[in-house]
């Protein structure tokens, strides 16, 4: 009896150590960024892990003064959200067809769409830059939205198609029997059921668009279309740096990612579980 109690105690302690460790490595860096944003450069350089001597918002003021953060913030939000909606809407329809319908060349088409995962992003820069300048979408939010929606195509397709395949066909057959057409069945029956899979793909797509740097640099030239990752470069150059402002900007940049994940985490978990059971 006593041995059993000791065993339970040890397993509890191990479980807590394990949980605390993961909480620490997940939240630790975020807390460190927020904490550093209140310190002076000197404090960051001399004692990186100490608490700030006083909570000064000078870093946030400097960040807003040095870089057009709010403008870039708005652009990032708009571009990331619209590219995510566009990606999910278009890719989910393609994924549904590829998951449900039988037609000649289906495998080839699936492989073709997925194969873009294998193309290095750097090799896409030049052709996409030329296309965007030729069609007049250089330095526009639309240009970035389209490029981001397309960049996320293979991963979204893979996730959503797998999820659709896990939904029983009988549900759709029942909808057809009740008189629903193809589009109605898709939008009113399949789409809501697949929301976990769609949310997973949406989160990945949003984060890809939110964090993307190279295309934002190459395909834009004005503050009217530029996004937040470019703003972070305003705080370090070859021979000068302002860490306080950089951490303040970073703190502002990471908030949406955390919010989106927190709001949609239930769907993501559901999707992972569904995937694990039904393959």
């Amino acid at each position, binding site marked *: 009896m006593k041995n059993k109690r000791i065993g339970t105690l040890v397993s509890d302690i191990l479980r807590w150590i394990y949980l605390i460790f993961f909480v620490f490595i997940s939240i630790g860096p975020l807390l460190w960024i927020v904490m550093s944003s209140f310190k002076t450069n000197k404090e960051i*350089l001399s004692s990186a892990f100490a608490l700030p001597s006083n909570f000064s918002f000078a870093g946030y003021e400097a960040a807003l003064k040095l870089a057009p953060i709010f403008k870039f913030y708005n652009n990032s939000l708009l571009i990331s959200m619209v590219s995510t909606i566009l990606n999910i809407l278009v890719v989910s329809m393609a994924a549904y067809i590829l998951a449900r319908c039988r037609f000649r060349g289906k495998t080839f088409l699936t492989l073709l769409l997925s194969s873009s995962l294998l193309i290095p992003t750097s090799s896409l820069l030049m052709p996409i*830059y030329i296309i965007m300048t*030729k069609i007049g979408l250089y330095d526009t939010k639309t240009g970035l939205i389209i490029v981001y929606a397309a960049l996320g195509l293979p991963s979204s397709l893979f996730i959503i198609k797998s999820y659709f395949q896990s939904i029983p066909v009988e549900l759709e057959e029942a909808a057809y029997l009740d008189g629903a057409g193809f589009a109605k069945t898709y939008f009113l029956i399949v789409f809501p059921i697949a929301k976990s899979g769609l949310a997973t793909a949406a989160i990945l797509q949003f984060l890809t668009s939110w964090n993307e740097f190279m295309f934002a640099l*190459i395909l834009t030239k*004005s503050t*009217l*279309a530029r996004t937040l990752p470019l703003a972070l470069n*305003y*705080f370090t150059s070859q021979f000068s740096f302002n860490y306080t*402002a950089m951490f303040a900007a970073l703190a502002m940049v990471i908030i949406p990612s955390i919010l989106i994940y927190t709001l949609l985490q239930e769907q993501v978990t559901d999707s992972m579980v569904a995937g694990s059971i039904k393959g």
Partner: protein
Amino acid sequence: MMKRGFRKVVGVLLIGVMAISMLSGCGAKNKETGNKSNTGNTQVSDGGNESGKIIEINFPTSWVGVSSSTEWFNDRLKAFNEQYSDKYKVVVEEIAGDQAYVDKIKVLYSSKSLPDVISTGGYNLIDSMKDQMVDLTPYVDDQWKKSISEVCWDVNSRDGSIYGIPYSRQVIGYFYNKDLFEKAGIKEPAKTWDEFFAQCDKLLAAGITPVSMDTADSGWLTSLLLGAMIASDDEGEAFMNTSLPKNYNTKEFIDAAGMIQKLFQNYTTQDAIGGKYENGASNFFMEQTAIIANGPWMISDFYDANMVEEGFSDKIGTAMFPGDVMYNSGKIGFNIASKSEEQLKASLDFVKFMTSADSQLKMLEMTGEIPAEINVTSDNIYPLVTEVIENSNKAARNINDFQSLWYANVVDEISIQYPLLAQGQITPEEFATALTKAAEKN
């Protein structure tokens, strides 16, 4: 049945209208801003429109944010706009970050759409892009040529043709912490490299890490030491004044690489491997290292209470590298890639303004960068800047910096090879061979 078909048609039409309105809504900006070039536009620093034709000059710059030249550039841009308000408007593209700047220019070059004016802040893009740059030789008269230090024209010229208009000189030695030197019993900076290493030993014995070094971003701090070590004799000095060398398997280079390996392994901080300039500078600011090689643009930080303890600047001394070696060379200046005569004239006027004696004087006073024009001096500068200039006048050996001289891919290769050299995974000979192989690819 008819009704359902009608709904479908309406649905499709609605989706189409939504898609078109979204595209045109977001994409209309270019028309509104009236951009003529296919490279779009950005913050327009404009003037009036009295003559009816104002020429746009496209100028991407990394002089934004915390860059030490931001204030100077904004001041000069404002002055240019005031002076030429009826003729030109400068379309400034802000590209924060030096590497991001170079990356974007490379893509623009590949698609044959270089902007009118380029200023890389020291990176040598002339060799890889001169076919799209304008040969400026016919536009530089004798008087202009004579007013500027010859070394500045040298670094901006290829085969007798001028591709860059200089505005600044690279005058670089090293800074040392006088307090830490005194603690270690060192009276004055070393005259030879043997003495330098002996001083490093003394500093170590006093519990002080001797040198700030780095490996990332071409290892600027480390490479300055490497170049100075190479230039210890006549052959080495000649090497450090040779443009685009292809053979690094020389005795001077290998000996210098050996000394750098020794410094990495015994006399620098742990964060040097993989570290950037910021790490090295931070260690020097925090008095954790006693020596840092760099140019006078760093001096303003010695007085910045946000970076260093009060009175830090009083502890700093300036020195030539052992053997009285100094970097005393030109810096890559403004390049022009305009495609029409009209654009070229506008770009030339802009570049002339940005590189004028007045602009150089302001640059010296605001950033501490040494002017390219010989006669530009000021009393309104930090005393340490004056010391650096005096050192450069006394130097026995004057050399050029690696970023201006060596192939761009060799400069990139350094960051890959330094960590290996530092950890003893390659020998100095192998380090030299790796750079030679990289150079041979050109």
